[in-house]
C-alpha cells in the first residue's frame, strides 16, 4: 500500500489579542502538533467533540486555513505552503464535502453549474461536453440527470448531499475530506449516503478522511481512527485497536457515551465529569486531567509522550496501564 496523505507535525495557532493596544497576548492552539498517515484507498477517521479542533484540522489540511507550521504531503508532494498554480493542482487532488449540504450549495445556481464549478476553477471545463459531464456525475452519486436544472432549495437533504458529493468528484480527486457529512441527515438518509461512500471507494479507489463526532459512524466506515481532544490526537490506531483495545481514558469515555444499538455491553459506562476546557486557558499538563478519573500528580504537570503500544497503535497517557486494567476489569 502506498501513502496517499502524510500530515507531519501540523499546527494551527490563532493569536489571542487583548488590552488597550490589542497586542498579541497568547495563542490558541486549535491544532497542536498533529501527525498521521493515510494509506491509499482507505478511510481514516477523526473523532472528537465540539472544540476538539477536528474541523480546524480538516480546514487546515484542505488549505482553507494557512497552517502555522508542519507539512501536508499529498502523493509525495508537500503542499503546506502551496500558492497559485500549485494550490490549484492541490485542489484537483483533494476535495471536501461539508456537513450542511444546503448551506454549501449556492442558492442562485442550478445543480448542473454547481457540480461543474470545481472543473471551471481548475480550467478544465472548456474541453468537455458539459451536459454529458453533469449527467455522468449525477448518475455516479445515484441521482437522475434530470435534476441538473433544479435549484438547491428544490432538493431534499439527501439529494443535496449527493450533489455536494458529485461536485467534489468532478475533478476526480484522490482524497476526499468528509467533514461530518451525515450529521444533518435523518437516520435512513444517513445510511444511504454512507453506503454511497463505500461504493465509490470500491469503484474509484478513492481515499477518505472522515471527521465525525459520532463513533458509530466512524466504527462502521473507517480502517484507521484518531481520537482528538483539545487540539491533539490522544490515541491513534486501527478501528480494531481503538474500538476493542482502547488505551486512553478519553477514548473509553467517548465509546461509553455513544448510544449503540444491540445487546447491552457488559462494561460499566464510563462518564467523564465536567466539560471541554477553554482553549484560551487550557489546563496544565495533560489537558484531560481535570475530567479524568485516572489523573495523578504527573498528569497535572506534564503532557504525556505519545507511546507506541504495539502494531502502530499510539496513545498519549501517563497512566495507560491503569486505564487498560480498569477497562478489561469492567469488561469482565
Amino acid at each position, binding site marked *: 500500500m502506498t501513502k496517499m496523505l502524510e500530515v507531519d507535525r501540523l499546527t494551527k495557532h490563532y493569536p489571542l489579542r487583548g488590552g488597550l493596544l490589542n497586542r498579541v497576548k497568547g495563542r490558541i492552539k486549535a491544532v497542536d502538533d498533529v501527525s498521521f498517515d493515510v494509506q491509499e484507498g482507505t478511510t481514516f477517521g477523526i473523532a472528537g467533540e465540539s472544540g476538539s479542533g477536528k474541523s480546524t484540522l480538516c480546514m487546515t489540511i484542505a488549505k482553507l486555513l494557512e497552517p502555522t507550521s508542519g507539512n501536508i504531503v499529498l502523493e509525495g508532494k508537500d503542499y503546506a505552503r502551496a500558492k497559485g498554480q500549485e494550490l490549484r493542482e492541490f485542489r484537483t487532488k483533494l476535495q471536501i464535502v461539508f456537513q450542511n449540504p444546503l448551506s454549501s450549495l449556492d442558492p442562485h445556481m442550478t445543480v448542473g453549474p454547481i457540480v461543474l464549478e470545481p472543473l471551471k476553477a481548475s480550467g478544465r471545463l472548456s474541453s468537455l461536453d458539459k451536459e454529458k459531464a453533469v449527467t455522468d456525475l449525477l448518475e455516479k452519486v445515484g441521482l437522475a440527470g434530470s435534476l441538473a436544472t433544479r435549484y438547491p432549495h428544490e432538493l431534499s437533504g439527501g439529494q443535496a448531499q449527493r450533489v455536494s458529493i458529485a461536485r467534489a468528484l468532478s475533478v476526480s480527486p484522490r482524497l476526499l475530506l468528509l467533514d461530518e457529512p451525515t450529521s444533518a441527515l435523518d437516520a435512513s438518509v444517513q*445510511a444511504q449516503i454512507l453506503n454511497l461512500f463505500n461504493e465509490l471507494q470500491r469503484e474509484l479507489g478513492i481515499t477518505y478522511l472522515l471527521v465525525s463526532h459520532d463513533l458509530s459512524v466512524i466504527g462502521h466506515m473507517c480502517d484507521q481512527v484518531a481520537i482528538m481532544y483539545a487540539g491533539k490526537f490522544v490515541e491513534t490506531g486501527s478501528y480494531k485497536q481503538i474500538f476493542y483495545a482502547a488505551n486512553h481514558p478519553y477514548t473509553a469515555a467517548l465509546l461509553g457515551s455513544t*448510544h449503540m444499538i444491540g445487546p447491552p455491553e457488559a462494561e460499566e459506562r464510563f*462518564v467523564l465529569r465536567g466539560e471541554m476546557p477553554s482553549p484560551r486557558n487550557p489546563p496544565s499538563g495533560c489537558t484531560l486531567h481535570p475530567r479524568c478519573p485516572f489523573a495523578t500528580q504527573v498528569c497535572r504537570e506534564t503532557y504525556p509522550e505519545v507511546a507506541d503500544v504495539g502494531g502502530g497503535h499510539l496513545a498519549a497517557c501517563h497512566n495507560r496501564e491503569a486505564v487498560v486494567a480498569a477497562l478489561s476489569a469492567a469488561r469482565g
Partner: protein
Amino acid sequence: MNLVEIEGLRLSFQTERGQLDLFTSLNLSVGEREILAIVGESGSGKSTLAYAVVRLLPGNAGILGGDIRFEGKSLLALKESEMAKVRGKRITMVFQDPGTSLNPVFRVGEQMLRVIKNNIGLEGEPARRHAVQLLKEVELADTNQVMESFPFELSGGMQQRVMLAIALSSNPRLIIADEPTSAVDATIQMQILRLLQKMKADREFSMILITHSIAVAQDVSDRIAVMYAGDIVEEGEARSIVRSPKHPYTQALVRCIPQPRKPDEPKVPLQIVGGQVPDLTRPPPGCRFNPRCPYAMDICRREKPSYYRVGGTNALCFLYREGEGQR
C-alpha cells in the same frame, strides 16, 4: 390510571396544497413515573403530538376530534385561561436548543426567579433558596455564579441544566423534552440523560421524550412509540422494540443505524428503505408505509391496519394478523 391518555386524536393542517391529515385516530398513553420516548424522523409528527398535549400548535393546525386527558381531565375542554394554569406548571417543557430558550439579556437568576414567582408564587429569599436548590439538583456546582451569569456565559451543557432546573421549579407531573440533548456533545449528552433518569427516580414525574435517535430512546426510556407519517406504527417496552422490532419501518430504522464493525469484520452495506416519506396531503391508500414496505401485501394497499400484539409490542401491521407469516 394513566397520567396522560390520548384517545382517537384527529389533527389536520391547512396547507397551500390542501388539508393535511396528520393524525387520523391516534391513541397513546403515558403512565405515572414513566419515560415514554416518541421516536421518528423529520416530519413524522412527533413534535406536533407533544405540542398538541400542551395546546401550543401553529395557527394552521386544528384538532378535529378525539381527546387528550391529563390527570383524568380533558385538556381540550379547558378554556385558554385554565390551560395556562396547567402549561408551565403541571406540565413543563425542555426544548432542543437552550441557547434560544433562555432570554439573552437577563441573568439566569432573574429568569429563574421570574418563573418561580409566576408559577408557584414564591418571592424574595425563599424563591432564591428554591432556585439554588434546583440548580444543585441539576448538579451545577457554583450555583451563585450561575445565578449571576448571562446565558451566553454558560456552556451548552450548563444552559441545558438551567432549563431542566426551570422545568422542575413548579414540581410538574409531566415534562415534555423535545430533543433535549441533540444540541450538545456526546459526553455531555450522556451526563444530561443520566441526570434525567436520576431526577425521575427522585421525583414523581413522567416524561415524554421526543427524539430522532432510537438508540438514545433505548438508553433512557421505559417505553418507545415509533412514529411514521403521523401514525404510531409500533409501541412497546423500550428494549423489546430495539432488540426485536416488529413493524417493517421500525426494523428499517434500527437496521440502518451504523455500528462499529466487529473485529476483522468486512465493511458491509447498511440496510436501507427505498422511497420517501409520503406527501400527506395525498396519503397512499391503506397503510401509510406500504409504498416503501418490502413485505407489502394487497390488503396493505387497500385497508388501514389495526394494532396487533406481538412479542411485547403493538404493531400497526397486517403481517401480524392471525394466520399471516411473521417476519
